[in-house]
């Protein structure tokens, strides 16, 4: 194998699994260390800069970082990254003074964001401090989009939404709230320099089963029903409720039903429990509130009497393998009937663009969706950009934020006459953490604590009121203990072969058997003959050369604890623990956002 080029920003970025997995590439270990140091405001700002809604995401994020977390490969469970974010948000105090200043001079360019959800708000936040005049349109009276309409209050209090939306509104965009845009042609005619479409995926899928028309008064579309609850148009539901669907919306529907008078609430899904789209923790939370999840039942027909819903017929399903593909098919057993008073359908969401005229020069694909570039978010009308669920279908808030950042970069490039395809590289830096012989600027003593549970309000209290936030969040002490579980994967083991005397000290001390000195070879063969086999092919091997014996140093990054014992044991300073910091490109600040500090070259011990 070739020696690893650690100068390439992706190499060490990949080692920081959480940051790599996060669509917005939030520097997770950095803010977790700040939380442990009780520097909550700083931790909040690291988050705010990269994901815009730390308080909201700290309660609702889909957490792509957690399954990626190295801790989950070292012991049972990953670090509770998401809920630590909330600790920063809960304890930060006043932060507005830490935010970038308002633009003193406008640059004369006008950008309009359609929809005031997370994607649009991110675009607005990125562009406003640069001097753009940003207009935001939304059909609702307040900003937030699906964050405000679809996420139940017991998971996300309205005050948190207001606070974080207001940080953006403080930059004084021109808001046109309560005005639904119904023609893109009309918007374009107003002469904006750029248009950003962040209208989400606002249409809940409908099953259209027999009997639905007759029982319509008790059959609801999940996301519409949730938004009606959020706006307090609906405050009760029947005693017996069936929720159809297995995603996170279904979990929100069933848990909301429990708080609005539903006593016998069931989730019934077509697939198996394990294949459900809902996040495991959301399924767990629903079950914790006494909601059974019945799997392998496909809804066939609604039953009704005198225009009132009485129940649903289900066909039992199972997995069948056909031509090597798994398919759900009826088992052939007799159908089963579940009685109920109300049904909530949460079986998916769709984009819909009835308000975009088809004769304005925008290309649509075979699914009647606008053609949008994956990297630049530009549509086929050069000054119209898409982001969030509107771009590539329903995802989640953190993806919307990531899209928003990228679209803002594109808009800024486009309006300053640059090529939107030439993406400015991220800012990176590597700084040695060495402070003394066995002293580092991070806490390298690995905590052995298991994952802490977030304290919850008891069911008796939580189920009584839809507005009572069910999770209490970590208090500062629990937050500290959970923060200490982080392995500091951004503190990288950097190897300088020229200094190495091949004494094996690092090999002997490494608790995870990550390091091997051996003859070089092909990757597959090399992975097999290391001190511990490198079986996780998604994790790179770090190859260091320049050794006197002609061998190579091979480090399997997979389960490295970043404990720094290799560097502490190294007599010549051939190993150094250097903090890698990567700041993704934001609009207007390209690679300048991080001043690349030169890490001192490792110096040989005397």
């Amino acid at each position: 194998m070739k020696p690893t080029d650690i100068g390439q920003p992706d190499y060490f970025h990949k080692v920081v699994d959480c940051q790599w997995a996060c669509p917005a590439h939030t520097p997770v270990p950095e803010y977790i260390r700040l939380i442990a140091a009780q520097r909550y405001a700083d931790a909040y700002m690291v988050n705010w800069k990269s994901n815009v809604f730390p308080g909201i995401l700290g309660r609702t994020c889909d957490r792509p970082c957690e399954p990626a977390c190295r801790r989950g490969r070292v012991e049972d469970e990953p670090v509770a990254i998401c809920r630590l974010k909330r600790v920063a948000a809960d304890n930060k105090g006043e932060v507005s003074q830490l935010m970038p200043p308002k633009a003193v001079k406008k640059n004369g360019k006008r950008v309009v964001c359609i929809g005031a959800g997370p994607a649009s708000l991110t675009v607005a936040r990125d562009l406003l401090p640069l001097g753009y005049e940003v207009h935001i349109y939304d059909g609702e009276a307040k900003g937030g989009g699906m964050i405000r309409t679809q996420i139940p209050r017991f998971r996300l209090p309205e005050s948190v939404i207001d606070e974080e939306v207001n940080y953006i509104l403080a930059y004084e965009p021109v808001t046109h709230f309560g005005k639904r845009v119904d023609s893109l042609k009309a918007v374009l005619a107003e002469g904006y320099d750029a248009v950003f479409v962040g209208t989400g995926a606002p249409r809940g899928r409908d099953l259209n089963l027999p009997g639905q028309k007759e029982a319509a008064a008790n059959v609801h579309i999940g996301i519409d029903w949730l938004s009606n609850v959020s706006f307090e148009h609906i405050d009760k539901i029947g005693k017996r409720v069936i929720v159809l669907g297995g995603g996170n919306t279904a979990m929100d529907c069933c848990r909301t039903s429990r708080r609005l008078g539903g006593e016998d609430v069931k989730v019934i899904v077509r697939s198996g429990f394990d294949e459900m789209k809902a996040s495991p923790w959301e399924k767990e939370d629903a079950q914790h509130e006494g909601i059974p999840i019945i799997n392998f039942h496909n809804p066939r027909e609604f039953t009704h009497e005198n225009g009132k819903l009485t129940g649903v017929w289900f066909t039992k399903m199972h997995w069948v393998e056909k031509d090597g593909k798994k398919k759900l098919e009826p088992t052939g057993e007799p159908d089963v009937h579940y009685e109920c008073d109300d049904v909530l359908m949460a079986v998916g969401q769709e984009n819909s663009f009835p308000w975009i005229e088809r004769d304005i020069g925008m290309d649509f694909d075979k699914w009647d969706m606008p053609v949008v570039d994956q990297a630049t978010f530009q549509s086929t009308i050069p000054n119209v950009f898409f982001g969030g669920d509107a771009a590539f279908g329903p995802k989640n808030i953190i993806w919307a934020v990531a899209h928003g950042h990228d679209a803002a970069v594109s808009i800024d490039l486009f309006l300053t006459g640059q090529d939107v395809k030439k993406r400015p590289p991220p800012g990176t830096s590597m700084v040695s953490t060495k402070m003394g012989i066995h002293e580092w600027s991070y806490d390298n003593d690995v905590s052995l604590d298991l994952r802490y549970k977030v304290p919850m309000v008891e069911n008796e209290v939580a189920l009584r009121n839809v507005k009572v936030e069910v999770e209490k969040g970590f208090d500062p002490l629990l937050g500290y203990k959970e923060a200490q579980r982080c392995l500091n994967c951004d503190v990288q083991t950097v190897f300088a072969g020229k200094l190495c005397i091949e004494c094996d000290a690092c090999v002997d001390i490494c608790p995870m058997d990550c390091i091997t000195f051996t003859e070089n070879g092909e990757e597959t063969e090399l992975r097999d003959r290391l001190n511990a086999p490198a079986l996780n092919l998604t994790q790179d091997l770090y190859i260091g050369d320049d050794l006197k014996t002609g061998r190579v140093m091979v480090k399997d990054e997979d389960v490295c604890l970043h404990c720094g014992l290799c560097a502490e044991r190294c007599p010549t300073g051939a190993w150094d623990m250097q903090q890698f910091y990567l700041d993704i490109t934001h609009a207007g600040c390209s690679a300048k956002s991080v001043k690349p500090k030169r890490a001192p070259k490792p110096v040989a011990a005397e």
Partner: protein
Amino acid sequence: MTYLAKPPLHHPSLERNAVGFTRRDYEGRISTLCAGCGHDSISAAIIQACFEIDLEPHRLAKFSGIGCSSKTPDYFVSPAHGFNAVHGRMPSVLTGANIAAKDLIYLGVSGDGDSASIGLGQFCHAVRRGVNMTYICENNGVYGLTKGQFSATSDKGSKAKKGAENKDSAIDLVMLALQLGATYVGRSFSGDKSQLVPLIKGALSHKGTSFIDVISPCVAFNNHVGSTKSFDYVREHNEAVNRMDVISPRAPIRADYKPGELKEVVQHDGSILRLRKLEDDYDSTDRNAALGYLARKAAEGEIVTGLLYVDPDASDLHDGLNTVACQLNKLTDQELIPPLSALEKINASLR
């Protein structure tokens, strides 16, 4: 050197041996030696060897004297028995323990100061008596604890860190052990675990006196240009006579080597030492030939490593003393205090 203990977290593929332990279970406390010390590599090799021969930790007894090397029994196999003797007196304490409890596996760890200076007499006599033990000398050719004076194993002409040249002749403990009748003699290098681990495994399963001289560079005081015990010097002048695999009595025999390439030595406990020759004219079962070969190579400035001599049918101190089968410390009053009738019987035989 670190203040932090090695975290107990381990690689997901960490295996268990036949007695249910992982390699990590054979570790000891965190080393307080200098970072990069060769002795720590030897401790790691001992850990690996104990794991691989499925040794139950409570069956091991560790002995040491004084010196950097003699601190190391604290750094491996914590659950084993241990005794830290006074300077140079480890061999007699070990001998005493071995007399009383012969069923344990005895491991003496010493250094060049502890073995070749203050303890040279003790070393000689323990070897001469054939005490059933593994004696490892962690040989760095320097007094590390007192900041770098030449030791008795420093080669003539070797330079100290500040440039002074050693005028005295070196004691070669391997030659001494061969002359005194050790029945398993090897030399290795702390920087070559693939050679050292099998040597230790073979020694621990050998009946009789096993001696392994391990050259172990002192990174603080003896790893400079001009030293003959530095990493670079040893790597350059290392001449291995053979490579060894130790096959436990339980393992299935695999014969996938060409005939003549291999020499197999079956030890007392059934373990097989499979030697792959690297030097055609070297026979590791011929003591006198070994002595001659080593003397020739030493004159050429080469460091001969590998399994230098083995007598698989060796006897030990207990055979010589003709002790009872039962471990002496397990004898009860019944065996030790014969009844009056026994005395009468003896007296009658003398009348």
